[in-house]
């Protein structure tokens, strides 16, 4: 049983190494009523005294994660902080973009919650680039969930006004479904991948606000059509803001940095996602 939020041991596994500071107690809003209407008969099962009952739920399967994500958003809002959910295939250069931002824009002072199935390697890389980072290992999990991120945030203990990036597990499918409490989502696509990725992974590109097209320094060597990739992405999501970036050479990082600064903290009273499509 997790003492912070009362979750059971049957929670999806995650490990996190940190102390729970008392003054950073993370409150999950668990006040929810399970009101089922019972409009049905209770027939007796023949030959027994058992009754069959139908309980109506009408509850989204994402409701639990959504509740925890909203709690994260409220927690961040109370600290005038903004979080970004960064997603993309393994090897797209998510960590390299964060390292690039740390080096080219040290005054942005990003904080990072790293998600990987195993190892502390990415958190180490971020720390070496000069930012604070917490690693979450999801074990067999293929995406970050709001609950693990809540613990990551506590451990990170952001100062008021922080910009925090949740670097998700490398995967263009599953992470799209799970709100973590971010204000905006970023998908990283690299030019060493196919330029038709936006068509093949529509959920991901539909759910994001920004697209980082990374490794543009390699364009002379690969068969990647930038205008086609951007057109496919815009087709999926007309509001997507594209950035052409080379994390290693530094191209596009200034523009990306301005955009990261431009996303405002949520007002203390509103805890709705800034620009995400609402889940049913």
């Amino acid at each position, binding site marked *: 049983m997790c003492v912070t939020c009362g979750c059971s041991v049957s*929670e999806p596994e995650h490990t996190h190494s940190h102390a729970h500071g008392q003054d950073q107690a993370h409150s999950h809003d668990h006040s929810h009523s399970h009101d089922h209407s019972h409009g049905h008969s209770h027939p007796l099962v023949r030959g027994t005294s058992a009754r069959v009952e*139908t309980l109506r739920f009408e*509850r989204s399967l994402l409701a639990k*994660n959504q509740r925890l994500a909203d709690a994260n958003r409220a927690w961040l809002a109370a600290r005038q902080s903004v979080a970004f959910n960064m997603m993309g295939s393994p090897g797209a250069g998510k960590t390299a973009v964060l390292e690039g931002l740390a080096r080219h824009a040290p005054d942005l002072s990003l904080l990072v919650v790293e998600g990987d199935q195993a190892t502390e390697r990415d958190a180490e890389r971020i720390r070496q680039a000069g930012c604070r980072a917490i690693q979450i290992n999801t074990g067999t999990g293929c995406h970050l969930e709001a609950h693990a991120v809540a613990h990551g945030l506590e451990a990170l203990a952001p100062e008021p006004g922080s910009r925090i990036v949740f670097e998700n597990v490398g995967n263009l499918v599953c992470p799209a479904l799970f709100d973590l409490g971010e204000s905006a989502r970023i998908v990283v696509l690299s030019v060493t991948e196919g330029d038709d990725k936006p068509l093949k992974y529509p959920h991901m590109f539909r759910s994001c606000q920004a697209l980082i097209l990374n490794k543009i320094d390699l364009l002379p060597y690969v068969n990647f059509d930038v205008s086609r990739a951007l057109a496919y992405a815009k087709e999926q999501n*007309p509001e997507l803001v594209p950035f052409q970036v080379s994390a290693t050479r530094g191209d596009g990082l200034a523009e990306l940095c301005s955009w990261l600064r431009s996303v405002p903290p949520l007002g203390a009273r509103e805890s709705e996602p800034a620009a995400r499509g609402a889940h049913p």
Partner: protein
Amino acid sequence: MHEMSLTQDLVSLIAENCAGRRVTRVVLEVGKLSAVVPDAFRFCFDLCTEGTLVEGAALEILELPGRARCRDCEAEIALDSPFGRCACGSGALQFLCGEELRLKEVEVMSCA
């Protein structure tokens, strides 16, 4: 495989609300534009319910149709997958419904 963690949440949601009763049937509504695969759900359901009060329950998945509006010609079309195109050729579709992922109802058996 995100269906696994969704199924774990499903089982705990049922367990929290059906304590002491045997669950005989679980009805889910899954929209055709949602990012889950019904077969993957069925596979995970058998694994996740083992040893719980949901073990052995029948899983019924109601697939809900998708609808979208074309951003270019504004036509409203039926959609069976999230990668469709409008008859006008545009792929710029705004989903109107079909992304549902809901536990609709649960049938339980209790002793009178």
